[in-house]
């Protein structure tokens, strides 16, 4: 990346992001391509490894950007605000602007509450941004002296006053929006997004939606107009990207509804096939915008995954939300259109599956206007029964500002509450609160999400080191019911942007009564992450279950699917028993017997002729919370990526370790305290003279083993290879379970 730029674009991660990276963003890439074509230096801030606020901010400022532009969604709003504020403090002359859907909808709120934001872009940004930077450039980037009036689609602050220009909707300004998007250079062909990133960023063939769904703001933001690329442009991008995708990577068409104009979609597919472009594709569309003939063409073009939005399988509800026909509360007809829509959903899903499109996904929304518990369950059961549907997104209705529903939602009994008086963070109350009682099928994305979160949580709780990156903590384990403001403020110094926060509550009552108010504190005090997972412990026979708030919601989850915590001694004999499953068990060394059991397991693996074959021929082992002390370097006290904090605000690196700091201390102080503890341990044990010095991790906290016994075990038995293999193979569980 060039180290001086007119404008840097920042797409901060959020709880739903792929890891905690700063990624490319297709929308900002379009703007960057436009700026570059007009002679400006513009680029995306990319960071693939986690980093703290201080590190990210310094890196951004080091580009000497005249403008820092943030792409803001509801999900990354908090982090965008946090970083923007910090940039302004450290570099007051940098002009801070927000764009993206959140800025388009909440620009008034942002301008009124974030004094460090100089401007908000409303709707499409290419023309507005170009005009903005052209005028600034003409004034040599003297912001206060630049005339920004009459730039359509801009809200801005000058002389401490807020000005709001008329909105800009590019398709309003052009009578024929067909192929209008070709006026903008390609983000790929102009080198803004590397083609090998295509499977992450996707491509656009068209923008906007002309449908009438009352809950959705896609159509609102596009003024119910569609603006397209030419087929030639789509093909040239696809052809270019296709040469750089690896293996089975999938390229997604990010259009709101790819086949909204079926003839155009068919033409694109035909040209892909004619040009023999080899690419695996996916898209979201509507079942009433495809037929068998188009599906054949899509299959031939390379589509491997299709998402057909459904929302409800009840005709009356489809009418109320305007999914097929303009919304009506009391239809006077027999709702033939909706009945045909549901029939066509079943028909096209079956046909797509039949011709070999392997991944068929749908989306369902519960809590829709006038919907009863029984009707919501009927929809879910219909999707659950349909063997042609592989997965579905189980969404809870949200009311977005600007949508038709946001005007008359109260008549349906919904109540909205803004957390911290911030309209970006809305808590909804549904009539009868039935959304929590609705059946959630195992096909739902919520099950996948819980499974994914549990796996990641198990990895964190077992303190297995993750990617090293720059200094900073990627994970916080908070063992407390209450979140304090001082704690959240401190996180800004020590926790990576979008790092994981696992909060362990004392019980179900505590999680139910406190998790909402705690979340509000994370927002209020500007947490560097809202990637928060809430768990509580519950006794269950010999073991303890680690349950999350989702465990209650996902009633179809059996007890064995939840995280179980127990001592290794308790399960050592069960490791040979095929009836006992350990996929989601965290085994800890809680007493001396547990340590002996762990050591004997490692010796058994180590004695095998080929330890790797031995382990892969066994069923998957549990996660081990204290395996690190038997490795050479796979420990949290080496990688320093996870901190455990208790309700006394004491800080530890290990479940059984000494206190190595407290909330409020700087990152350097905490690390220095740990270094000192490790050095004292080495001196006390005289590690420098030990024959195992180069192989031993020198665990400073070998509890429950006495120090002498730990040293003796390390000297007399080779545990390293077995422990490292077990940890390495844990990743198979991470990916496939």
């Amino acid at each position, binding site marked *: 990346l060039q180290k001086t730029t007119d404008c840097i674009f920042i797409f901060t991660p959020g709880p*739903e992001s*792929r890891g905690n990276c700063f990624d490319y963003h297709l929308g900002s890439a379009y703007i960057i391509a436009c700026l570059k074509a007009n002679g400006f230096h513009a680029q995306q801030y990319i960071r693939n490894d986690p980093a703290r606020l201080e590190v990210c901010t310094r890196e951004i400022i080091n580009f000497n950007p005249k403008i820092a532009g943030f792409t803001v*969604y509801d999900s990354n709003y908090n982090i965008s605000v946090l970083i923007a504020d910090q940039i302004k403090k450290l570099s007051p002359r940098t002009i801070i602007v927000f764009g993206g859907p959140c800025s388009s*909808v909440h620009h008034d709120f942002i301008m009124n509450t974030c004094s460090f934001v100089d401007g908000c872009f409303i709707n499409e940004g290419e023309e507005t941004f170009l005009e903005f930077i052209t005028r600034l450039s003409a004034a040599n980037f003297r912001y206060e002296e630049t005339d920004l009036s009459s730039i359509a689609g801009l809200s801005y602050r000058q002389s401490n006053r807020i000005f709001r220009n008329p909105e800009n909707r590019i398709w309003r300004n052009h009578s024929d929006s067909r192929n209008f998007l070709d006026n903008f250079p390609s983000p790929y062909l102009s080198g803004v997004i590397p083609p090998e990133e295509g499977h992450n960023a996707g491509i656009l063939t068209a923008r906007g939606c002309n449908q009438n769904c009352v*809950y*959705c*703001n*896609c159509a609102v*933001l596009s003024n119910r107009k569609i603006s397209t690329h030419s087929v030639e442009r789509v093909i040239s991008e696809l052809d270019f990207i296709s040469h750089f995708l*690896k*293996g*089975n*990577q*999938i390229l*997604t068409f990010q259009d709101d509804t790819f086949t909204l104009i079926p003839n155009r979609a068919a033409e694109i597919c035909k040209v892909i096939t004619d040009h023999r472009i080899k690419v695996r594709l996916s898209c*979201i569309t509507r079942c009433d915008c495809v037929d068998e003939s188009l599906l054949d063409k899509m299959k031939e073009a390379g589509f491997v*995954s299709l*998402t057909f*939005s459904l929302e409800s399988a009840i005709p009356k509800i489809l009418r109320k939300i305007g999914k097929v026909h303009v919304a009506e509360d009391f239809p006077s007809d027999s709702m033939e259109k909706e009945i045909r829509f549901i029939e066509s959903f079943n028909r096209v899903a079956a046909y797509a599956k039949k011709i070999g499109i392997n*991944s068929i*996904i749908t*989306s369902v929304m519960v809590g829709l206007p006038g919907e009863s518990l029984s009707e919501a369950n009927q929809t879910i059961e219909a999707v659950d029964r349909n063997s042609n549907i592989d*997965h579905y*997104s189980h*969404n809870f209705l*949200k009311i*977005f500002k600007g949508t038709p529903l946001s005007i008359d939602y109260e008549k349906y009994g919904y109540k909205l509450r803004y957390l911290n008086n911030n309209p970006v963070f809305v808590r909804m109350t549904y009539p009868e609160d039935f959304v929590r009682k609705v059946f959630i099928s*195992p096909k739902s*994305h919520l099950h*996948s999400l819980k499974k*994914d979160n549990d796996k990641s949580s198990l990895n964190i709780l077992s303190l297995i080191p993750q990617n*090293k990156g720059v200094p900073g903590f990627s994970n916080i384990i908070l063992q407390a019911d209450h979140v304090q403001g001082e704690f959240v403020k401190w996180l800004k110094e020590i926790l990576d942007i979008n790092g994981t926060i696992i909060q362990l509550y004392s019980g179900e009552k505590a999680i139910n009564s406190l998790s909402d108010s705690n979340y509000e504190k994370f927002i209020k005090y500007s947490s560097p992450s809202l990637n928060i997972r809430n768990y509580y412990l519950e006794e269950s026979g010999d073991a303890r279950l680690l349950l999350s708030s989702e465990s209650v919601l996902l009633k179809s989850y059996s007890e*064995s699917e939840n995280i179980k915590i127990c001592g290794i001694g308790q399960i050592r004999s069960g490791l040979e028993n*095929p009836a006992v*499953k*350990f*996929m989601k068990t965290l085994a800890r060394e809680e007493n001396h017997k547990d340590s002996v059991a762990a050591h004997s397991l490692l010796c058994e693996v180590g004695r095998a002729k080929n330890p*790797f*074959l031995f*382990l*892969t*021929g*066994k*069923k*998957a082992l549990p996660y081990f919370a204290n395996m690190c002390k038997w490795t*050479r*370097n*796979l420990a949290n006290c080496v990688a320093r990526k996870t901190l455990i904090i208790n309700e006394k605000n004491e800080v530890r690196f290990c479940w059984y370790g000494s206190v190595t700091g407290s909330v409020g201390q700087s990152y350097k102080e905490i690390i220095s305290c740990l270094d000192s503890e490790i050095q004292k341990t080495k001196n006390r044990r005289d590690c420098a003279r030990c024959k195992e010095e180069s192989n031993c991790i020198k665990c400073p906290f070998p509890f429950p083993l006495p120090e002498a016994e730990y040293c003796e075990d390390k000297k007399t038995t080779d545990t*390293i290879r077995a422990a*490292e*293999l077990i*940890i*390495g*193979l844990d*990743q*198979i*569980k991470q*990916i*496939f*379970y």
Partner: protein
Amino acid sequence: MKEGTNQLGDLTVSEILEAALGSDRAGQILQEIQNAIDQELKGDDLKRRIYEILCKFAVEDIEVYHILLRAPQVVT
């Protein structure tokens, strides 16, 4: 994820790979991990190499999962 993989707790590690990816790809993965071990990769290096091997052969399953998590309703 392929059918039947919700019962992974019953399977051995190599069977898990076979259930998820088919025996060909599972065999390739196991062979590549064995090669990494034979090359004496250790500790963090071995762990990272195993992850790279798994991603190389299992990318399709990971990609489909990511598509699923893109909820169509949500724009803001």
